[in-house]
C-alpha cells in the first residue's frame, strides 16, 4: 500500500476544507463528496483543486447525495478509503427549526446510510462522526464525554441520533467508529449566516464605512468557541488512535455572543454598543444557554489542546474579513 485514502463528506464546508488541506499535507489521497447543483459551491476548496488529468493529483471530487444510500455504497466499494470523515450535515441550528424533517434526514438518517453502506460493502475503514456540543443542549456545563444529552433543537436531536448510531455500529459490529464531540469552532471560512462570521464580516464592513449596524438575536448565549483549523487535527488524531472512542474537543472557556461582538469591535477600535441592533427573528424557539467543553480526555489520550482561544479567534476573523474587503482574495 503506497498511500492512505480518505473520504470526506461535506468537503466543501468549513471543516471539510481544513481537513482536506491537513490530509493532503500528510500525503493522503483525498476524495470528497459534493452535491450536484446549478451553482458552484466549492469556493472553500478551489485553491486545492487541480485538473484530474494532471499528474500527481491527490484531490478528487465525486457527485453524491447523502439521501442516496446506493450511491454511497457504490462509491465506497470503488474507492475503498482507509478513513471516512462524515462531516456533511444541515449544520445551522436556527435553520433546523424551519426545516426539521430535512435536517433529520440529512443530519440524522444519512449517518445510518453511510454506516450501513460501509457494513454492506465490507470495507475495512475507520469512521469519524462529526458530533456536536449542541447534543448537550440544556445540560449545565462543563460538559465532557459522560455528560447526558438534552438536545434543544431539531439539529441537536439529529446529532444525538447520529452519535448513537455511530456508537451502535462500534458496539454491534466492532467497527472503528469514533465520535468527535466538537464544541463551536469558527474560522474565516465560517458561513456568513453563522453568528461569529456575521459579526466579523459586519465589523470589517462597518470599519470601512460600508455598513452601519448589524442585527443579532440572543446576546446572552454563551459558547466555547475554538478555531476550526485546529479542530480538524483532533479529528485526524482520533482515527490514528489504537482504539475507537469518543472525545470532546473544546477550549474549556466560554464567551457570550455579546463578548464575541465586543472583542471583534474592539479589535478595530469600535464600541459594539454603537452598532449592534436586536432582531427577534434570530431567536431560537428553545435556546442553549451555556456550553463549556472539558477536553481533558483528548488532551491526555490524543495529545491535543486548543491554542487559539476566543479573543484571538475574533481578531483573526476580523482581520481576514478586512483583507477580503480591501483587495483581491487572500
Amino acid at each position: 500500500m503506497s498511500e492512505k485514502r480518505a473520504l470526506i463528506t461535506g468537503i466543501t464546508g468549513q471543516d471539510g476544507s481544513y481537513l482536506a488541506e491537513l490530509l493532503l499535507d500528510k500525503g493522503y489521497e483525498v476524495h470528497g463528496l459534493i452535491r450536484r447543483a446549478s451553482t458552484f459551491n466549492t469556493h472553500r476548496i478551489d485553491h486545492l483543486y487541480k485538473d484530474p488529468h494532471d499528474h500527481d493529483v491527490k484531490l478528487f471530487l465525486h457527485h453524491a447525495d447523502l439521501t442516496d444510500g446506493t450511491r454511497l455504497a457504490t462509491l465506497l466499494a470503488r474507492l475503498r478509503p482507509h478513513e471516512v470523515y462524515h462531516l456533511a450535515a444541515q449544520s445551522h441550528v436556527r435553520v433546523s427549526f424551519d426545516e426539521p424533517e430535512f435536517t433529520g434526514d440529512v443530519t440524522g438518517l444519512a449517518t445510518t446510510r453511510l454506516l450501513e453502506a460501509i457494513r454492506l460493502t465490507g470495507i475495512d475503514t475507520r469512521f469519524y462522526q462529526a458530533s456536536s456540543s449542541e447534543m448537550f443542549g440544556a445540560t449545565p456545563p462543563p460538559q465532557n464525554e459522560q455528560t447526558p444529552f438534552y438536545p434543544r433543537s431539531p439539529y441537536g436531536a439529529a446529532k444525538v441520533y447520529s452519535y448513537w448510531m455511530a456508537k451502535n455500529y462500534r458496539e454491534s459490529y466492532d467497527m472503528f467508529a469514533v465520535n468527535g464531540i466538537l464544541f463551536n469552532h469558527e474560522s474565516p471560512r465560517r458561513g456568513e449566516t453563522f453568528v461569529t462570521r456575521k459579526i466579523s464580516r459586519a465589523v470589517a464592513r462597518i470599519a470601512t464605512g460600508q455598513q452601519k449596524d448589524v442585527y443579532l438575536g440572543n446576546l446572552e448565549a454563551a459558547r466555547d468557541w475554538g478555531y476550526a483549523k485546529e479542530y480538524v487535527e483532533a479529528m485526524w488524531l482520533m482515527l490514528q488512535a489504537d482504539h475507537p472512542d469518543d472525545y470532546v474537543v473544546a477550549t474549556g472557556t466560554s464567551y457570550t455572543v455579546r463578548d464575541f461582538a465586543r472583542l471583534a469591535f474592539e479589535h478595530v477600535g469600535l464600541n459594539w454598543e454603537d452598532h449592534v441592533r436586536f432582531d427577534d427573528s434570530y431567536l431560537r424557539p428553545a435556546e442553549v444557554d451555556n456550553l463549556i467543553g472539558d477536553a481533558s480526555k483528548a488532551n491526555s489520550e490524543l495529545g491535543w489542546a486548543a491554542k487559539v482561544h476566543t479573543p484571538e479567534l475574533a481578531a483573526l476573523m476580523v482581520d481576514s474579513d478586512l483583507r477580503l474587503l480591501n483587495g483581491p482574495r487572500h
Partner: protein
Amino acid sequence: MKQRTALITGVAGQDGVYLARLLRREGYRVLGTVLSIPDARPIIDVYLPDVEIVELDIRNSLGLGRLLDQHRPAEIYNLASWSSVGRSWSDPEQVTAVNGLAVLGMLEQVRNLRDLHGYDPRICQASSSEMFGLASEFPQTEGSPHHPRSPYAVSKSFAHHTCVNYRESYGLFISNAILFNHESPLRPQNFVTRKITSAAAAISLGEQESLKLGRVDIKRDWGAAADVVDAMYLMLRQESPDDFNICTGTSHSLTDFLELAFAAAGIADWESWVEFDSNLLRPVDVPETRGDPHKARSQLSWKNHQSFEDVVTAMVAVDHRRLRTGLQHDPQYLAG
C-alpha cells in the same frame, strides 16, 4: 356535550387494540390508522368493531396532516412503530424513518395546523425503555441518561428528544409514555415472550418438540399491555404535559419467564425443552431494564392491576385455547 375524538396510529397493534377499547368504553369516537387494511383485517374484525379505520403509512406526513385537519382529534396516541428490536438491525434506515422521522413529521403537521387554525391536540408518544439500554442507573427514572443499543432504540431516543423539544420550543401538549416491556395474549409470535408461551402450550399438547432461544439471562421490567394503556390515557388528562415511566419497578429474567410459562402449561422441567440457537443472538444486548414507577403512581394515580405472573399465565392459557379451538382471535382473549 360533543363526543370527543381520539386518533390512535398503529391501532391494530397490541397496545392499539387495548387503548382503542378503553377509549370506546370512555365514550370516545376512535379513529385508528393501520399500515395495511387487508393485513390488519383479522384484528379489526374481532377487536375493533367500533373503530373507524384509516389506511395510512405514518411516513406520509402530509396524509397524516390531512387526516388531522379533517377530523381534528382532541387526543393523538402515536403508537405506530417498527416494534421489533431484534429485526431493527436488518433495516436501520426504515426503522429510523418510521420510529423517528415520522414522529417529527407528525409534530410539524400539528404545529402548522395549530398556527393556522388553532387546532391544539394533546399527544401521547409511545417512548421506550430500550432508550436506556446499557443503563448506568438502576432503577431508571424519567431523567436517566440514554444509552440505546439497537437501531430501534436509537430511533426511539430521537423521537423522545424531538417530542421534548417540540413541547419546550412551541408549547405543544406532548407527553412521552416511556413504556417498559409489556405483554398480552395479543403479542405477535416474533416476540420472544409470545414465542415462549405458544411453545409451552404446544409442547404441553404434544404438538411441538423443542423451543430454540438465544440469550435467556437478560432481565426486563415486564408489565401488562392492558395496564400500560391506562397510563397513556391518564397522561393526557393532566394539567400539563410531562414524561412518565410506565413500568412495574421489578425485573425478571427470561428464565423466570420460561419457568412460569412452562409451569402454567403443566411442564415442570422447562430446561429439557429449550435449545440454544446462536442464530438468535443479537449483535449486542441490553442486559437489564428496571424502571422507577414512582412518578406515574403519584402523579397519575396509576397502578398495575396485573402481576408478572398474571400476564404470563394468561398468555399461556390463551395460547392453549388457540391450539385447542383453532381460533386465533377472540375478544375473550383480552380479559386479563
